């Protein structure tokens, strides 16, 4: 088990946003999270990513409890989350965003040897490698043409894709995506689907929230559904989507 | 000893209301325009000089002189908003430096007109109240009462009126506020002018308690900024509370320790409070 979440609970004042949630993620799978608005999906991922601290419960990453780590420590362990509301570095261009996202790669590659780059500059080989990688990811995410534009000039969909691209550059073992497809058009969703499948084939584990049931239903091997902060269904995605309580609380009508 | 402490506690409250009235201006302008108007100290100084001029030189009754001073200072405030602050909205550092530049200009003006010679107003309300061995000058009590009334009035106006609601909304998201039909530019101008008027009032009443010089503003605006931060920016009653806390800590600190460290007592308090509540005492934690 790559990630094991046990009886995770998060309270905000009197409101229990996540209540006793437990699930596990195996290496290499894609897991989907469904649930009505305000059911605690984002909160759950934020807890895993260290952005929020759980009220109780444990989060085991490869067997170690990570529930008290800061977001950057979690990211360094190989768990990276994207944001539901696109987050950017204002003023910077798309490619500059990507260079910042290479932080973890450089850190892994050079370690303490980074100090040497203060005098000698970055090793040429590494620099070239990173630029290649950036171009590759930008192409995959269809952002190449906007490479040198200010990120603030992207359309909403573009901003979301930039988030995914940055997440990919962190080279996570587990990538947590919060509604990557919302705001994307059909074409872009198809592309996203391909990108994510490709990631999976390269051994990256994915945990995805989305309300685009068609998209995520096709993509996810397994799913869980939350309602009022609690897991109401889990298992094979098609089974979860067919679950009566899920239909009643979330889908409204049976999904094709 | 208890008399000494209680006396200074009360004096701290009184001094604190003066910090509070300027702090209120700081808090409102910062909250709404994103600018820390350091020049509020200079506006206060202008208010003090205008009051002195109207009262001692022209010979108006004191209340009329103060009202006149408030009007004069508001006009200065309006003009400086039109000419300067309008262009620095939302930019903390630029606004800060523009206001510092204005301090220089105002000080130079007053210096040229009235020289460095301190002015001491003819006493408006001499004498003191004596209660249980504690002596409080009448004028200080009266001034503190006016400040309290003005701050509470502002609080009521902001929490109970649409203008106040619009102000809070604007402070958070200017574009969305425009989409709600809030006339943002006008609102900001109102706030800038109102806070300068508060500073003018502060200066006008200040002049009845202390002697005035062209440099009086700078010390007070620093205190006011500390008070606003201590309280949490955006909180009206907090500005008052922050001012009073500063006033008390300075006075009581000076009694028990060396008065040479007077300014440090408030600062240490400020640091401690922000460590416990990073958003300020009355602000929200974020």
């Amino acid at each position, binding site marked *: 088990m790559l990630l094991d979440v046990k009886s995770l609970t998060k309270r905000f004042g009197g409101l229990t946003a996540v209540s006793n949630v437990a699930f596990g993620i195996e290496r290499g799978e894609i897991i989907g999270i469904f649930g009505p608005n305000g059911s605690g999906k984002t909160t759950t991922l934020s807890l895993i990513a260290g952005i929020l601290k759980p009220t109780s419960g444990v989060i085991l990453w490869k067997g170690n409890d990570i529930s008290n780590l800061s977001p950057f420590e979690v990211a360094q362990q190989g768990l990276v989350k994207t944001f539901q509301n696109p987050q950017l570095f204002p003023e910077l261009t798309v490619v500059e965003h990507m260079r910042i996202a290479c932080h973890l790669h450089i850190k892994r590659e050079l370690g303490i040897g980074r100090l040497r780059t203060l005098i000698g500059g970055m090793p040429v080989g590494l620099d070239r490698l990173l630029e290649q990688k950036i171009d590759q990811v930008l192409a995959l995410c269809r952002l190449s043409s906007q490479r040198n534009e200010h990120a603030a000039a992207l359309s909403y969909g573009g901003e979301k894709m930039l988030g995914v691209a940055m997440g990919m550059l962190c080279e996570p073992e587990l990538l947590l995506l919060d509604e990557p497809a919302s705001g994307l058009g059909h074409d872009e969703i198809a592309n996203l689907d391909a990108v994510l499948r490709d990631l999976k084939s390269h051994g990256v584990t994915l945990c995805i929230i989305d309300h685009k049931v068609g998209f995520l239903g096709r993509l996810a091997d397994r799913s869980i559904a939350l309602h009022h902060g609690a897991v109401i269904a889990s298992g094979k995605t098609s089974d979860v989507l067919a679950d009566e309580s899920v239909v009643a609380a979330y889908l409204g009508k049976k999904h094709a | 000893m208890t008399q000494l402490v209680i006396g200074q506690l009360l004096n701290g409250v009184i001094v604190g209301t003066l910090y509070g009235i300027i702090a209120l201006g700081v808090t409102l302008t910062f909250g709404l325009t994103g600018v820390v108007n350091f020049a509020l100290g200079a506006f206060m100084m202008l208010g003090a000089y205008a009051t002195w001029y109207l009262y001692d030189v022209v010979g108006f009754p004191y209340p009329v002189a103060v009202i006149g001073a408030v009007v004069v200072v508001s006009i200065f405030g309006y003009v400086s908003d039109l000419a300067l602050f309008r262009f620095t909205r939302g930019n903390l550092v630029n606004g800060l430096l523009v206001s510092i530049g204005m301090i220089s200009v105002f000080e130079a003006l007053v210096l040229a007109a009235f020289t460095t*010679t*301190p002015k*001491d107003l003819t006493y408006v309300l*001499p004498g*003191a109240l004596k209660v249980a061995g504690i002596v409080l000058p009448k004028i200080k009590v009266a001034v503190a009462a006016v400040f309290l009334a003005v701050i509470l009035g502002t609080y009521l106006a902001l929490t109970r009126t649409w203008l106040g609601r619009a102000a809070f909304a604007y402070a958070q998201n200017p574009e969305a506020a425009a989409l709600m039909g809030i006339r943002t530019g006008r609102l900001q101008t109102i706030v800038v002018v109102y806070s300068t008027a508060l500073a003018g009032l502060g200066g006008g009443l200040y002049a009845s308690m202390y002697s005035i010089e062209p440099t009086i503003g700078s010390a007070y605006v620093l205190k006011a900024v500390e008070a606003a931060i201590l309280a949490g920016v955006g909180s009206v009653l907090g500005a008052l509370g922050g001012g009073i806390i500063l006033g008390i800590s300075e006075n009581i600190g*000076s009694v028990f320790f*060396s*008065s*040479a460290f007077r300014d440090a007592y408030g600062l240490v308090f400020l640091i401690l409070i922000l460590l416990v509540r990073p958003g300020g005492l009355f602000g929200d934690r974020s």
Partner: protein
Amino acid sequence: EDVVKIGQIEALTGATATYGWMSAQGSKVAVEEINAKGGFKVGDRTYKLELQQVDTRGEPREATVQFRKMMEEKVHFVFGPFLTNVFNAIEPIANQNNGKFLLFAGATSAHAALGKPDHDYLLRTWNWDAGSAGFGKLMVDYLKKLNTRKVAMLFQNDAFGKTAVDIYSALFKDAGIELQVELFEPGTKDFSAVLAKLAAGKPDILFPGYSDAVLYDIVRQSTESGFGNRFFLVRGSIGPALKNKDAIEDYIAYVPKYFEGAEKTEPKVRAFIESYQKQFKREFPYDQAPLCSSSCYDHVYMLVEAMQKAGTVDDVAKIRAALMSMTYEGMWRIKYDKTGEAVFGFDVVHVRKGGAIERVPYDPTKE
């Protein structure tokens, strides 16, 4: 036409500007007067004065640059600085230029530098608290006569305040008077807390310093809140006493000259005040350190007289010798003692409840 340059290096703006600003005005009045009369003759040549006034803002660093510039421009006579920290900063540069110019300094710390090697340039225009001809000792004696046992000193925490506390601590100790000291931050306006604290120590008299700006506040707050009504001071004017005349008990001040009185009896004082009013088109600030403007005024004239006596405008050694040997009769009678410290008379003014003024003149130049 020939000119003699006079420099003046003072704080003209900023929180410490009060004295420097007034000094600058006094020399300006003198220079304009002299030039208006067509200058002055030394030998068979006529010279006019050129006054270069710079504003140090009270910042030592600024002063060092400005002072260097004056030295480069071969200014032979420099008035100022009044501020102790500024004097300390320019002293090393002045030492390097020893023999090339004269400095008419006012700073208290200049007292200690008088007569040291490399300090031939130094003259001190105001006999302040310290020194044999200083008034500090006389003032303390005056207090002693009033049976004072304990004094509370309340001074601004700056270079001068610290110097004053050092000087007076020693003087009070010698006189067997107990001393309580509190320092306040520059810019303080509310003295309530510190006054209350001092009052708790039950001093006989309060010794506040040192400019009118704080005196008005201290005297008012102290009397209004009942912290004390007896004052003793060595700077500032009697304005605060007169304003609170019914609230004070005693108010004893060193005043180089009681201008309100002198104006009526001394024509030279009258003339100076008129000239000042004409020059600056404003009221004469009686309660604003008139000693600074008037003494600078006198010293400019004294310097001119010395140049005429010495028969040169640029041999500073000769001019210094002339200054040291002469007695100038202006608003004051001024002499220099052998170290280069100016000696001139002053008044002790004692204001009593109700505003009665008693004036005790001292004239050390007579001894």
